């Protein structure tokens, strides 16, 4: 099995810009899922010169939405005042993609062997890895594509 990253990566992915308002990025998550015909949970962030600047996932956004002291709030018995959650979400409006993205991104080369990719995905708990050469993103390897590429031999 000599499959490498370039054999399983997708090139039909959406990207975000660092200075894109978060509200726009959230809309793009929905649109990307429709256009790519699969659920998009995270997208690469590419700067104006085409370099990979980071990744933004739904997890990053939900981490911000979640109250920091949720443990305490969970013990409070009464219901929250109406509209408080909406008011809290309003704070997202002033943020850009670069404010919440993960800048330290695991990357692989196009020649990375698929077993090495599986190992990285398991050890690092990631479901997508950008394929990069000279700071430019060439594609994205998704765990579902790796899964079917490897296991179709078994069927």
């Amino acid at each position, binding site marked *: 099995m000599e499959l490498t990253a370039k054999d399983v990566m997708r090139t039909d992915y959406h990207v975000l810009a660092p*200075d894109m308002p978060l509200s726009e990025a959230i809309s793009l998550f929905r649109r990307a899922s429709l256009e790519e015909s699969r659920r998009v949970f995270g997208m690469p962030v590419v700067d104006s010169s085409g370099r990979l600047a980071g990744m933004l996932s739904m997890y*990053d956004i939900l*981490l*911000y939405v979640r*109250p*920091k*002291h949720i*443990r*305490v*709030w969970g*013990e*409070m018995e*009464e219901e*929250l*005042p109406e509209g*408080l*959650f909406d*008011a*809290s979400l*309003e*704070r997202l409006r*002033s*943020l*850009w993609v*670069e*404010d*919440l*993205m993960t*800048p330290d991104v695991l990357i692989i080369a196009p020649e990375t062997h698929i077993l090495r990719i599986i190992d990285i995905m398991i050890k690092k708990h990631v479901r997508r890895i950008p394929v990069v050469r000279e700071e430019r993103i060439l594609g994205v390897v998704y765990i579902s594509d790796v899964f079917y590429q490897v296991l179709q031999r078994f069927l």
Partner: protein
Amino acid sequence: MTASKGNVLSSVTVAEAMRRQVVRCDPEESIARCIARMVKYKTGAVLVEEEGGACLGVVSKTDVAGMYYVGVELDTRMGEIAGGEPLCCHPGDRLETALATMLDRGIRRVYVHDGEGITGVVGYADIVGAMYHFCIQCRRNLYGSGKLRPEADGWLTAEDVMHPSVMGCSTSDVLQHALETLLEGRIGALAVFDDSGQKPVGVLSMSDAVVAYRHGVDQGVSVERIMSAPVLACEMNDSLTATLRTMIFADVQRIFVYNTRLENLAGVLSLTDAARARSGACKACRVASRL
């Protein structure tokens, strides 16, 4: 669970209240990257540490807002601006002692050092949260036993604990002037009023200022450009418990307090004030009221 010696905090150690997530950055990282960490993890300060764990200092949101004000470049290395040594306590210390230290020194957090390194941090929200947690579980808790009726038994209200003054600015004020007010007064947020000066329409916080810094916003713009809205506020006679719940849920350090309607802002209630007062759960013990 019962408070010993009639004092909830006396029975609680720092380890029971501290957060283990300490936000750190490398001295080689830029101010821009540090701001992103502050925003993402909703923290007011970042520890600057070398690879081996040697701590170079703490950089707070106020420090970063100061850098913005004086025009420091965003790509400046954190190692160049890391300043004060972090004030530390031990995991086994009493939470009461940590709170007293914070109040005495006028600081918002104490780092927790276990002898080998910094493993946690305690801020006002953590202390208020811990008090709430222990009060709710305490067998002497009048609230849980149903013996306490807030209206009849005189629960602490927002008015009892708030600072009875509000610092503010106008939507059309220049950001630079508003920054001056924030930094000179070492205050966390200004109420932003409409041009009539009557109606509060937003808040300008240190968080808003550092985000504007990262976004390259010119300080000549009007406050309206970067303020947050709506204004998070409560009524003077709201119970302290309900107010704390709102603050903890909304992840804010302070809330504006109004009399009858929002146009009549009467004060500001911060988590510092709340920690100084008490958890607000009940009055079975007189815990922090003496702090």
